[in-house]
Structure formats: structure tokens, C-alpha cells
């Protein structure tokens, strides 16, 4: 079980004056169990890439195989979309129904499941996102707080029991506590939905949660890295118009001042600085 992407190319408005190559021969594999990050500046092709994964954009160049479903052949859209759950930016804008229960049931209903199976899944998904099922099921989603609304939207996707969850900027607009809550929730979700793919502009989040990271720039893949490999390469980060996570950034600023320190997270940075201090006063 995995996502295998080969030579993926996508051109918007082909053969018109507005022709734009959004993805150019992108190849990589996302393994089962990955918490996979996708980063790149605005317009680098991230959204075009993930829109391919559940068939929202029709494959026109290259090949993609998602958990055995070959998207370059005729395939069952419904099956693909129940495998791959897609949570867009600000997903709470997509809530629409009168009650939380009905909103979350929309996906499973469209899968043609039995009434009891739908009810089970709705309860499962609402509980999985950490909300009190009995208290919230009959409330209007529009009366909830921003963080709660985002969880309900997430539950609507999880109710389809996807094997792969794609999150596009899941923490955008949330305050620091809300951000941490959503991210910690993704770890809990991962126990049920083994593969998580996250787009984020926040490098601290990427460094803390992802095990592998694809870097896109101008529609091309720059490579797939572990966080340590990636954030050790400040040249690449700068060239891509991205930023380093806080700890790596401060370590780099210190190196630029002649202090030989490297660190990929806050703990490493603190102990590296304290060690340098001891060495300099020994």
C-alpha cells in the first residue's frame, strides 16, 4: 500500500496564451505509514499535486497508483475517494447542514452505506476528533467555535474511513493552542488512518511532525528529505523561498557569527549552546 507518482506533469489551459505548467515530471513515492510533508512557495504546484491524489484533477501526464488503484486507467472514483480523504484549507467553510450529525453523515451517505453503518461511522468520527458526541450531534455546526468547526469538518472526511488523509494547511488561521491541538489530533488519527500527507508553510510544524518531506519549486520536485537532511540545507531552503524552523534558523544565525552549532529542534539547540558556553569557559 503506497502512493507511487511517476513523471507527473500537469499543464493548465494547454495550447492557449494562458498555458502554465504547474507540475513538471514529478516522481516520488509515499509509503504506507508516512507522515509526509509537502512544502514549497505559493504557486509551486502543491495544491495541483494533491488534487490529483483523489481524482479532483484528471491525470493528463505521467502515472499515479494509489493503494493499487491506477489513475492512468479507468477506475472507480468512489473507491478512490473513500481511500483518500481530502481536507482543504479552512475546511469549516464547507460545512453546510443543519446539525453536526447530518453534516458528518454526508460523505458516508454518498458512499451508499446502510443507515446503521452510517450512524456508527458518524459517532466514530466525531469521537475521533475529540468532540463530545452526545452533546454536539444535534447542534448547528455554525454555532460552534472556529476550532470546533474545523474538527467537525475533519470528522466529515474521517467518517469515510480513508486510509490516506491529505491536509492542506490544517492550522492556518488558528491561534497557537488551536494549532497544537489540531496537530496532536492528527497523530491520534494516524493510528486509524495510517498515512497522513500535510501541506504547510509552517516549518516548525513540518519539522516536528513529518518523517519525510517533498520540496516543490516552480512545479519541479527538488527532492524528498528527512527533516534533518532538509533543514541542514539552508542553501536549498533559501533558494526555494522557504524558511528554517526556529531552532535551525537560530543555529544558522549563530554559525554566520562564527559559533559552530547545529540543531534541528529546540532541545538540541539549548544543549548545543550550553555546551559551547561550557567549552568557551573551560
Amino acid at each position, binding site marked *: 500500500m503506497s502512493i507511487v507518482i511517476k513523471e507527473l506533469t500537469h499543464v493548465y489551459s494547454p495550447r492557449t496564451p494562458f498555458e502554465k505548467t504547474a507540475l513538471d515530471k514529478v516522481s516520488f513515492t509515499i509509503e504506507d505509514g508516512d507522515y509526509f510533508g509537502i512544502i514549497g512557495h*505559493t504557486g509551486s504546484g502543491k495544491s495541483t499535486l494533491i488534487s490529483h491524489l483523489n481524482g479532483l484533477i484528471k491525470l493528463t501526464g505521467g502515472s499515479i497508483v494509489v493503494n493499487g488503484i491506477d489513475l492512468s486507467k479507468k477506475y472507480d472514483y468512489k473507491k478512490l475517494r473513500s481511500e483518500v480523504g481530502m481536507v482543504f484549507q479552512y475546511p469549516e467553510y464547507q460545512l453546510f447542514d443543519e446539525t453536526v450529525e447530518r453534516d458528518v453523515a454526508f460523505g458516508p451517505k454518498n458512499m451508499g452505506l446502510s443507515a446503521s453503518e452510517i450512524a456508527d461511522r458518524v459517532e466514530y468520527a466525531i469521537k475521533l476528533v475529540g468532540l463530545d458526541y452526545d452533546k454536539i450531534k444535534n447542534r448547528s455546526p455554525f454555532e460552534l467555535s472556529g476550532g470546533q468547526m474545523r474538527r467537525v469538518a475533519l470528522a466529515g472526511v474521517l467518517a469515510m474511513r480513508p486510509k490516506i488523509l491529505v491536509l492542506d494547511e490544517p492550522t492556518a488561521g488558528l*491561534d497557537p493552542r488551536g494549532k497544537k491541538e489540531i496537530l496532536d489530533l492528527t497523530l491520534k488519527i494516524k493510528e486509524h488512518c495510517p498515512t497522513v500527507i500535510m501541506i504547510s508553510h509552517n516549518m516548525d510544524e513540518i519539522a516536528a511532525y513529518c518523517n519525510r518531506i517533498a520540496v516543490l519549486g516552480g512545479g519541479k520536485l527538488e527532492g524528498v528529505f528527512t527533516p534533518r537532511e532538509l533543514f541542514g540545507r539552508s542553501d536549498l531552503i533559501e533558494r526555494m523561498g522557504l524558511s528554517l524552523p526556529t531552532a535551525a534558523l537560530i543555529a544558522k544565525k549563530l554559525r554566520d557569527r562564527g559559533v559552530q552549532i547545529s540543531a534541528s529542534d529546540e532541545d538540541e539547540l539549548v544543549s548545543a549552546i550550553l555546551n559551547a558556553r561550557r567549552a568557551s569557559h573551560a
Partner: protein
Amino acid sequence: MCYYIGMSFINFDNVSFTYSAGTQNEIRAVKNLSLSIEEGEFVALVGHNGSGKSTVAKLMNGLLIPRTGKVTVNGLDTADKKSLFEIRKNVGVVFQNPDNQMVATIIEDDVAFGPENLGLDPKEIRSRVDSALKSVDMYDYREGAPFRLSGGQKQRIAIAGVLAIKPRVMVLDESTSMLDPQGKKDIMDIVLRLNREEKMTVIMITHFMDEAALADKIFVMEDGELVLSGGKEVLKSPRLIQNGLGYPPAVSLAKRLREGGMDVGEVYTDDELVEEICRLL
């Protein structure tokens, strides 16, 4: 809470605002808020989601009128309809989503929208549009279409649109939250320059504590109330941990280094922290 009553440029005197007042969906977004902002200050307004920050932004230029209490801008009351035009010339707001702020199909037309509505002479409009676009480094794009720009570029156009009105105050309501790291940095650089070099008053509403660390004055809101206000020392108040906002990264790292026995002085930004560490090594 302390009261500042006097001739500050922006003054909130015991202001409350309620959405859907008198209905069952009533939300008391701002409660008995008093604060003052002087000309030339760089102010950060921080708070959790739903703390009332955006309501405060909208109260600052009369998009919302207080239910009780009074907001004045340069001595003019926002509740006085005759003053609104003058107030909005003085206070420009840049919102979160750049796509919601574009009104024209050509970039320079979009930036000209404000000055056109001020009824200015076409020559003056041309010169304001050009200098506003140069100020955000988007002059070369002036004849292009906004929809082809990146989020950060669109946000720069939105700032240019505000600059072309020549306001004395710019309010940025989470204006960097949808941008990529480069876009975020570009906006912060522009805003800092406008404040430092052109003495524009800047009010930055944000969740990013590293952005707040650049301000001279910090206001912290919780559930519609102002709970902390003051200089940078606000950024090390334990209250920021309790309310979930957290410290700016440099403040929390400095704290950990002190716990490890290093005598780190007062720092708020990454650069200040780096400077201090270099001094101590």
C-alpha cells in the same frame, strides 16, 4: 485596567460591542475595553481565536460602531456619521484574505480605487498609485491582473491600496496568516519600514508571537477583554502560557538557557537572542 484619557491618536474609552444583540446568538465580542494608541507607534494586538481582536480592528475605522463607550480617531468620534469619511482617510485596514480585498481587474486600477473615491485630481492619483506600488516593490506588475499573483504579492497590492489613501494608521488584521514564509517576511519588512522610516502608525493583529516581538507596545486580549498591555515586557508574562498564546521563540529559548545556568539578558527577537549568545560565548 488602566484608563488612558487624553489626546491619543486612537482612543477606546470603555468600549463594548455585541454581535446579534438581543437574540439568542448574542456574542459579547468586546467588553469594556479602554486603550490608547499614539501616532508613530508599532502596536501588536494578540489574543486567542474569538478573543475579539478583529472586532477591535473594525471598531478602529468605524466599520463597527461601539454599543457602549466611545472610539475616537484624531479626536473624531466613529459614531458620528459625518466624521466617518475623515476617519477612514486616516485609518486603513488590510485584512486576512487578499482575495477578498481586490476590487479591480488591473493592479493599478485596484490601487487607484481609494484615491479615486477621495475625489483627487487624476495627476495626483497617478502619482500616489505609482509611489504606493513602488513602496511595496510591485511597480513592475502595475498593468497585470491581480488573479495571476501569489498570495504575498496580492497582499502587497492590498497594502499599496491602503498607502495610496495616505492614511496615518495602518491596521493589519492577520494579514500574513495565509502567506508562505517569503510572503510573510516581505510583508513584515514593508510594515517595519513604513513604521521606522515613514513614521506610520502600525497596528498588527496577529497570532504569531515572533511578529508581536517586533512591536513597541503590546495588547493582549482574552474573551473580549484587554488583560495585558504595555511594552515588550508583556511578552514574558506567564499569562501568555496560561492563555495558550505562548512566548515568542526567543523569549522561551532565553528562559531555558537561563535555567541551564547562562546569564542571558532580556531578549525578544531571534536577532537579539543571537547577539546576546555571541556576547556570552
